[in-house]
């Protein structure tokens, strides 16, 4: 526990925030089962499944926080609209949050902090993303012309405004995973990091294989029966390949890092696909859980965010959690040895393996993280034991909710302490500690 850590800079003791349970819809591959579902549809489905699981119909929850990475401008109040479309009381307040792929985890952190401070008794955190129903914007040129046109008063002004329109302005802007400041896609950024840490193709395929086999095994033992509600005919994550093998993964052609000097190692098998889905987590104070006879799966102990300078190439785009981790561990007086389960989001197998390599590298930890030596190594048997994003898929903002609910349930079954690490676009990352009750 944070308040028992004895570190002088430990957080101020506050109330305890607990994970009561979670719900998500199975994740679909982009253009698949949810091709015509909006973010709103999917988040309502995930939320209503949670309401049904815990009997929250008509209840006023302290606050609902969620977000989406790919978001239509009309969805500026997405989460509030979702609450109004759900079985919750319409008197439940809500807000949207956006921190790229860390959105889901950050909503958990924000609401658990409110619970710890006594501002709310219950909260629902989560996220949703649709790569299928992504917003498509008009080009910057066309947008300017249309705005000028709306301001034009005379016919002459209108003609003048229209005259500036060029054929290229008519092609729309589709969203990309490219970083605005470097123009590189996330995969190309990771390829740089993967090569820098000399992560092998075999190691990445092995991680992907374990993700699929762990997720398949979790389904087989019914692990998700109280974490998931089917949607649109999908009852399991569509990306899961229970029958995949290292041999099959080895046949896939590299898709990222083909222009680098180092051999290209990142394939569609060891990178997450574009995915649609939604996930939510029910949080509460201990009093709330007790007075409503609700389970308490895990305590949310602490969290830390970090950001890195990836624009200059100083650090890899998805390496921010590597920096957040020692700060979180120090504040809580803990080391990797104190944890029983690790949930490291698999944006790419290379991301996970680069992070592990960095923490094990004494020179890097001294030079970059300012530590006395290597932060430590993580027992692979404790890593992503119920599968992660490579197998389940990664609907950006939904991933945090998936991880928190799955880890909390694992802790409630097996006991111990769990560590979460989620990387995000923009060179950001969030890490968090959960503890069994």
């Amino acid at each position, binding site marked *: 526990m944070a308040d028992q850590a004895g570190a002088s800079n430990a957080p101020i003791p506050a109330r305890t925030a607990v994970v009561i349970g979670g719900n998500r819809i199975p994740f679909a591959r982009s253009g698949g089962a949810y091709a015509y579902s909006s973010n709103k549809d999917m988040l309502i489905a995930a939320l209503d*499944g949670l309401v*049904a699981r815990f*009997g929250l119909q008509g209840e006023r929850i302290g606050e609902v926080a969620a977000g989406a990475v790919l978001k239509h401008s009309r969805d500026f109040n997405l989460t509030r609209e979702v609450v109004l479309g759900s079985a919750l009381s319409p008197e439940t307040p809500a807000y949207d949050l956006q921190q790229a792929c860390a959105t889901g985890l950050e909503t958990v952190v924000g609401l658990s902090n409110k619970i710890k401070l006594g501002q709310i008794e219950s909260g629902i955190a989560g996220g949703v993303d649709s790569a299928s129903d992504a917003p498509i914007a008009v080009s910057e040129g066309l947008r300017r012309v249309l705005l000028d046109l709306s301001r034009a008063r005379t016919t002459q002004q209108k003609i003048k405004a229209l005259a500036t329109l060029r054929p290229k302005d008519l092609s729309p802007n589709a969203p990309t995973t490219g970083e605005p400041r470097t123009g590189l896609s996330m995969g190309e950024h990771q390829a740089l990091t993967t090569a820098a840490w000399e992560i092998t193709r075999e190691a990445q395929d092995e991680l992907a294989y374990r993700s699929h086999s762990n997720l398949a095994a979790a389904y087989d033992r019914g692990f998700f*029966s*109280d974490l998931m*509600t089917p949607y649109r005919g999908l009852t399991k994550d569509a990306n899961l390949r229970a029958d995949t093998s290292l041999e099959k993964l080895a046949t896939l052609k590299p898709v990222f890092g083909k222009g680098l000097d180092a051999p290209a190692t990142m394939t569609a098998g060891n990178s997450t696909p574009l995915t649609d889905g939604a996930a939510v987590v029910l949080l509460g104070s201990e009093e709330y859980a007790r007075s409503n006879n609700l389970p308490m799966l895990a305590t949310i102990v602490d969290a830390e965010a970090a950001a890195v300078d990836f624009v200059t190439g100083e650090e890899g785009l998805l390496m921010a959690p590597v920096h957040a981790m020692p700060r979180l561990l120090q504040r809580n007086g803990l080391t990797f040895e104190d944890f029983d389960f690790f949930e490291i989001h698999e944006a790419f197998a290379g991301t996970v393996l680069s992070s592990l390599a960095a923490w094990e590298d004494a020179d890097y930890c001294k030079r970059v993280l300012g530590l006395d030596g290597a932060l430590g190594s993580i027992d692979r048997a404790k890593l992503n034991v119920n599968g992660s994003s490579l197998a389940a898929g990664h609907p950006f903002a939904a991933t945090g909710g998936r991880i928190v609910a799955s880890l909390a349930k694992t802790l409630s079954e097996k006991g111990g302490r769990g560590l979460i690490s989620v990387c995000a676009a923009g060179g950001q990352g969030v890490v968090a500690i959960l503890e069994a009750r």
Partner: protein
Amino acid sequence: MTDNYLDLVNTPLPGKIAKALGLPRPSVLRRYTPGEPIAAKPVLVTGSGAGAEALADVLLGWDVEVRRHVLPGEKLSAAVVVLDRAASPEDLAGPLLELGQAARVLVPGGRVVAVFRSAADTTDPAVAAARQGIDGAIRSVARELRGGATANGIVLRAGATTTDATTLGALRFFLSGRSAYVDGQFLEVSGTPAEGVAGLAAATAAVGEGVPDQPLAGRTAVVTGAARGIGAKIAETLARDGARVVAVDVPAAGEQLAQVANRVGGTALQIDITAPDAAARILEHVGGRYGTLDIVVHNAGITRDKLLANMDASRWDAVIAVNIASQLRMNEQFLASPVFSTTGRIISLASTSGIAGNRGQSNYAASKAGVIGMVRAQAASFDGAGRTINAVAPGFIETDMTAKIPPLTRQVARRLSSLQQGGLPVDVAEAIAFLASDAAAGVNGQVLRVCGQNLVGA
């Protein structure tokens, strides 16, 4: 599934044409709405003796206009035939001929309820002939009645009286819209159940004051197979009557299950009832959230129809596993758990296929007849212990399942019942809600058919 023919003959011109041609003219049934009066028109109580007098007094206490004889030109809501003292077949003529006159003036959706003693409780051949004779006469009356009216019987077992709480509870059920599709059926009621039956005093009070709108208030009910069809309607009906509902179905049906749970303000539990830990998970959920499990409705069931000659092991085994083996295993664990109430109710879905058999359904009939066997044996072990177990056997009910029957067969199946129509899921649900209530505290080990007195499975 809508019955277009029923809708059609209940409009003026097609109705006349159907009458002229002698075609079936099914009526729109009188179904229950909370707060409905027991009887809008007078009720005839025919039969003589203390039992009849006492029952007439109870009805008067319910603010019902009671008639001891049919009055010229007056419509009747119901006729209650009290024959608890019938000692020989000659004793039947008076009350039953009076009933014949009443049948002529019964309002649409009217009710005939006979109250008599069980032929099984006498060794006197003449008495048994009288009692069994009533059974036959009432079944025939049920076939003769038109306009959505029904005829049913309450069979008093040894020691039971015409005004026991359980007798009155059954009478209320048969008089009400809850029994709309129950026709030609007989419910056996035992006398005042053994001491220690919690809720019976409340039941007696409730019957005396008029049944409250929420007879299941404060109870927690588990309904399996609740995602759709009859199960979803059972969940809704129990919730309407005040119960907290835990809706159970397989994880694959979770989307519809969540919708049902949210509609009824209950909780959704995604489990496969054939899993060995199914009962444990139900008990954990109910125990943790609500403390006590009061009502279990074993509704989940599947069909895998094939002629026995073409049957394979997987079809046979799947039906047995879901429809009966799971219930046996779960009941054992429920009954051993302190979470299951000492006045707990178990209601199992049987089927008329399990009573009379059905071509292509040897596996299904085995499972559903198995349910009946299980209910009777388990009921004997409950005798006087405060818990009850009963079965409801639906006949032709308008569901997605019966919608798949070829159109002509479906039309015939509907018209084969005395009510000349299929039942609705709510009709099954109402019978279950009754069996779950305090009013049915003395009903144990019974198989109540909700079939409109269909010829099939008679």
